[in-house]
């Protein structure tokens, strides 16, 4: 499901033990894109990363469908003991997390680098 039309453009394994997965999304994530988005978010969990970082720096817009995909990722990851972090949210995307008060539930980092290396 890494079709060029879905919002996930890249999946990379990084970190000392290659155990952090960075998922890079782009574009506008609404109802039209949220199924593809969710599927691409879930796939890397099968390889049991210790941490998932979702790079949203190229996501210009997100509605509650996109947020719901991330919440589903978080719920599943928490059950597996996997840490989920979001990075690079623009002001507009950040505000939907604030409105829904999910900004306190996700770890939100300014950059992918910080999300990868912070404790």
């Amino acid at each position, binding site marked *: 499901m890494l079709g060029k039309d879905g919002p996930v453009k890249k999946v990379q394994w990084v970190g000392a033990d290659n155990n952090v997965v960075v998922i890079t999304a782009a574009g506008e994530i609404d109802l039209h894109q949220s199924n593809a988005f969710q599927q691409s978010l879930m796939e890397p969990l099968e390889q049991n990363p210790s941490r998932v970082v979702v790079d949203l720096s190229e996501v210009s817009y997100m509605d509650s469908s996109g947020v719901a995909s991330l919440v589903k990722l978080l719920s599943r990851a928490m059950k597996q003991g996997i840490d989920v972090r979001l990075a690079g949210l623009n002001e507009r995307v950040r505000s939907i997390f604030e*409105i*829904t008060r999910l900004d306190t539930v996700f770890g939100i980092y300014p950059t992918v680098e910080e999300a990868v290396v912070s404790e």
Partner: protein
Amino acid sequence: MNESTSKLTCAPVRMSVFSTPSHVAVVRVAVERYCALLGFSKRSAGEVALSVDEALTNVIKHAYHGKEDMPIEVVMESTIVDQRDALRIEIRDWGTAIEPDKIKSRDLNEIRPGGLGVHIMKQCMDSVDYIPLPQRGTKLVMIKYCNP
């Protein structure tokens, strides 16, 4: 909004679309541009566009259960509400009517994927009214004041 802006920009814009998920974006950009004409800040225009997106998403999911070829009408217009300049957006569907007790605000402390749409609309707009229609479907009326 001064007299001359109001004369030039107040006219309503009506969009008739089908319940196709990809078309939500077409309505969204038109609404956002209409807001800019009325003098809304970028942030406020974005909030209105997001609210319209959430409303259309709900129509597609709940009124039409994912069927993609059902009609939706959106009317945006500038109007006066309580003696203040306001944007009024009406969204109408002909699907399963809304059950008013389902749209009560949810407990946000509960972490679950659904139930965010109506909460977002209520946060972003100054008023959100769902009117189940006698024949079929729902009419949603949202208001946002121009100068907060």
